[in-house]
Structure formats: C-alpha cells, structure tokens
C-alpha cells in the first residue's frame, strides 16, 4: 500500500507536464489518505524545480518529497528572501543528483545565473545609521539653532541689564517714575525693563519738568535667531538705543529740526512725514556749524539751527559723532509717512511734540556689556536737550515764518483731499436721507407717518428757499 502511494506521488511529480497524468494523480490523491494530501500542494509549487528534476525517482522518492517540502516551505516562508539564499538552496539540490543527468543542463546553468539581478537591500532594512545622514544633519541643525537661541537670548539680556545698571542713577534722579508697563493699578516705578521680545526692551520714564514722558527702546540685534546671525555676517548691523521724549504743548516752540549721519538724514527726509513737508531743502553738511563732516542737518529755518546748535550741543555731537544715528526735534511729529490704499487720508495725521534720538551702540554687533557705559554721556545730552528745547523760543520773524509754513502745509493737504471730502460729505447726506425715509416707512401709526412726512417735506422746502436766497444775494453782489 505504501509503494502504491509512493508511485502515485511520483506520477504527481511527472504530471507537472502531462495534464492527464496530473489529473489522474489528483484523482488518486483524492482517494488517498489525508496524510499525503498535503503533498499535493507541495508538488504544484515548484513546477520549475519539477522540470529540472529527473523523471524516474522511484526509490529515493521520499527524499525528493522531503526536498520539495523543504524547498516549498523555505520558499513559502522566505518569499522575499535574497537570491543568495535561493542560490545556495539550488546548489544543494543540484549536488544531490547525478552529474550525468545534468550534462546538457549545466551549460545552460551559467546563463541563467548571469541573468540574476542582485537587488540592493532597501536602506531602511540595513542596520546602519549611515544611510540616515540627511536626518542626522537636520537634527544637528536644529540643535545648533536651539543652542544659538539660548546663547543669543542670554547675551541680549545681559546687555540690557548692563545698560540699565549704568543708566539707572541718572534716570532715577531725573524722573519720578522709572519703569512702567501700564498694567499695574498704581503708578509705581517697576525699576526694571519691559521685555517686549528676545531682542527689544522698553523703559518708560515719566514725572519730570519740561516733558510728558520718555520712552527708551533698546533695539538689539536678533542674536537669538540663527538665520539673522548668518545674515548679519553678510551685512553688518549694530544694536540701537532709541529715545522718544514726548512733550506738552508749552514745553516746545513750533519748529522742526534734525541732525544725524548723512545716510540717516537722507532716509528720514524721505520717510518722515514732518521732515518731508517742513524741511524741503537737502541736508546741509554739519561742518558749517563746527560739527564733523559725517553729520548733516535738516532744518525748517536757519534760526532754528542756530538756536539748537549751541556750544554744548556741538561739543556733545563732536565727541560722540559715531554713536549718533539721528536726532529729530519736531512739534509736528506724526511718525513715518503712512501709505493709504484709498489715496490720501481724509484728515491730517495727529501730531505730537516729540524729541527723537537714535543712537548706535559701539561694537557693530560684537558688543560687550562694558560698551553700555559709553552711552551714558548720550543720555546726558538727551536730558540737556529737553531742558534746552523748553527755553528755546523763536523771535517774532521766526514765529511768523513757522506759522505760515504750517498754514501752507494744512492748505495743501486740504486741497488734495477736497474732492474726497466732498464725496464723503455727499454720501453722508444721502445716508441721512435714507435713514429718515426708512424711519418714516417703519412707523406703524399712520398719523405719525403723515406727520413725519410733512416735517421732512417742510425741511426740504426750507433748504430750497435758503439756496434760492443765496443765489439771489450772489446775483445782487455781482451786479
């Protein structure tokens, strides 16, 4: 019985090429014991291998079965295995058979081997970190950014603290309120800087004669942003300290004046609303007033320049010329020109009497906390300027000139916006009429409706009469 089974199985192997035999084999297998049923599947799989196998293998039929089984199982389990393994298996299989049987076959064997394609192992299956070098680069970049953030933040913080420590005494002796963030209920000095950013610190001082208040902004470089650090390697820049003193009406006479580095003056003349309107002439060289050539002056009139540039001021400017970016005194200060989308703004921008100082911190970016002490004389200059501006008054001629200038600017502005203001007024009138009509329509009470309508009609009639009167008057005058 066992031999019969084995013979059937052999025929199953053969049956890979001959369908009849194969069918017979299958039929026989069906009647067979279930022990051998599993070999049905085994025999179907390695059809290629079966082709290569020599046909009459009665005796060691168990071994082919086992081999096939091994073959089959190996292939089933490691379907995506490397061809190297498959090759090895093939080799083993071939070595078990007679070489005679494979005489013709061996010649074709090498060609088959040459068509084998060795695929590369996908990188993520290789157990090496080297393939992830881009990721490692990215992470290192991020770590570098974080390190730079921490270092830059600390440096800016130290610089700000150093500045405040060196200026604290001067400020506290001049102002009643030093440091305020506007949030506390009572106006008490906080005694410390407001941190707006990792690179901008504010300080508000108030409570002094001759001024409303003083806002100091420490505008440091963005040391905490690596991109900015790299950009600064191409284009050097420096830290700036900006002081803005706002004055009450009685603290300053009407004039506009600016002095600073030539570049800054050219830029401000274009950018600033008041400088472009009141100081039309090109910036004059500072040499005329005893100040270094590198500084230039923009002024509303010569009298103003003479008034501002007294000896002490000239001394300050000369000794600290490289630290001064711009100094701007103005009673018509409204900030830089605002670009409006709908053409001109409908009303003049709000102005405030202001003294604006912009100082460059020495060191061009490579500042150390000690450099902050060198800015102290400049703060003294600021205090001196506040007192000076209070005392500076134009003579009669100057005042007349100044008033004329201001009237001229206002007139120009009104002319430019005339058409727009007319349109705006027209739309407003139409809106009013519409609103009234709506109100009349919405009135439920018919009596009230009638009364409102009559009132509106009477008003319109009055207006018409007025107009007619005016026309008559004009006609009479013309005559």
């Amino acid at each position: 019985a066992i031999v019969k089974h084995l013979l059937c199985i052999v025929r199953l192997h053969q049956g890979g090429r001959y369908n009849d035999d194969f069918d017979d084999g299958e039929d026989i297998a069906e009647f067979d014991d279930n022990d051998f049923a599993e070999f049905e599947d085994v025999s179907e799989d390695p059809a290629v291998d079966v082709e290569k196998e020599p046909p009459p293998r009665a005796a060691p039929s168990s071994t082919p079965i086992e081999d096939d089984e091994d073959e089959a199982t190996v292939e089933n389990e490691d379907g995506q295995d490397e061809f190297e393994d498959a090759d090895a298996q093939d080799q083993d299989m071939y070595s078990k058979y007679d070489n005679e049987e494979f005489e013709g076959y061996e010649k074709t064997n090498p060609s088959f081997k040459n068509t084998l394609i060795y695929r590369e192992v996908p990188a993520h299956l290789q157990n090496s970190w080297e393939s992830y070098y881009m990721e490692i680069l990215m992470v290192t970049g991020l770590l570098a950014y974080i390190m730079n953030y921490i270092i830059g933040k600390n440096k800016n913080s130290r610089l700000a603290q150093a500045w405040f420590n060196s200026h604290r005494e001067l400020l506290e002796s001049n102002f009643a309120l030093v440091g305020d963030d506007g949030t506390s209920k009572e106006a008490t000095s906080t005694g410390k800087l407001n941190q707006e950013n990792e690179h901008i610190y504010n300080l508000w001082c108030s409570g002094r004669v001759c001024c409303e208040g003083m806002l100091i902004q420490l505008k440091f470089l963005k040391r905490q942003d690596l991109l900015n650090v790299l950009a600064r390697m191409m284009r050097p820049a420096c830290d700036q300290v900006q002081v803005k003193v706002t004055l009450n009406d009685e603290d300053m006479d009407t004039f506009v004046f600016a002095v600073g580095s030539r570049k800054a003056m050219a830029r401000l003349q274009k950018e600033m609303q008041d400088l472009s309107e009141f100081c039309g002439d090109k910036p004059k060289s500072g040499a005329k007033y005893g100040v270094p050539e590198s500084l230039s002056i923009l002024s509303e009139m010569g009298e103003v320049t003479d008034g501002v540039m007294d000896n002490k001021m000239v001394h300050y400017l000369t000794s600290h010329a490289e630290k001064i970016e711009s100094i701007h005194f103005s009673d018509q200060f409204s900030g830089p020109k605002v670009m409006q989308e709908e053409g001109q703004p409908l009303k003049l921008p709000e102005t405030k009497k202001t003294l604006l100082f912009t100082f460059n911190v020495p060191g061009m970016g490579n500042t150390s906390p000690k450099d902050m002490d060198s800015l102290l004389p400049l703060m003294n200059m600021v205090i001196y300027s506040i007192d000076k501006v209070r005392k500076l008054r134009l003579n009669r001629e100057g005042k007349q000139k100044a008033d004329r200038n201001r009237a001229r600017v206002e007139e120009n502005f009104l002319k430019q916006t005339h058409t727009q203001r007319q349109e705006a007024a027209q739309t407003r009138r139409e809106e009013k009429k519409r609103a009234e009509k709506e109100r009349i329509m919405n009135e439920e009470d018919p009596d009230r409706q009638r009364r409102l309508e009559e009132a509106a009609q009477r008003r319109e009639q009055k207006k018409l009469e007025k107009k007619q009167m005016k026309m008559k008057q004009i006609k009479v005058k013309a005559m």
Partner: protein
Amino acid sequence: MTANNMADPRRPSKIFRYKPPNTETNPTLEDPTPDYMNLLGMVFSMCGLMLKLKWCAWIAVYCSFISFANSRSSEDTKQMMSSFMLSISAVVMSYLQNPQPMSPPW
C-alpha cells in the same frame, strides 16, 4: 525748599502712565517675521503630510522654530505650540509611512 525744587527736576504730580503704541495705526512698526514664518510652517507641514514629502516636513519644523525665536512676548503661546506640534507630527507621519531615509536633492 525752593532750592531743592529747582535742583530736582522730578515732578511726581506730572506722571503719565505708559501706553503701548497702537500698532494698528502704524503697521510699519511691527515685525512681520513671526507671522510669516508661522504661516509658512503650517503650509509646509500640510504639504509634507499630504504629499508625503520628508523635506517639506523638516522645513516646517525649522519654520516653526524661527517663528518662535522671533515672536513677541505678548503673543499667544498656543499658536506657537500648535504650529510646532503640527510640524513635528508631519515629520513623524512621513517617517512612519515611509521609513526610508531622506534622499538629498542632488
């Protein structure tokens, strides 16, 4: 007494409170970098998630870091955190879907 007053310029009666400058009337004063970077970071992380591009996700992480570094202290931390989390999730998702390392563009 008067001598003291003359020398001391401080006037507690003339104290004005600090009013933060109104940035609506003067938009030129504000630095737009953190807002731009935030938006860019979100766009890149969405690209990275949808199109399964690893480099997009990494750029998104960088953008959110830059936005954080440039942000004002008055700004919402929730916004920063949300963009940061979005970019991190973009990176993680890209690697979960395709564990292959990123190939350089050259």
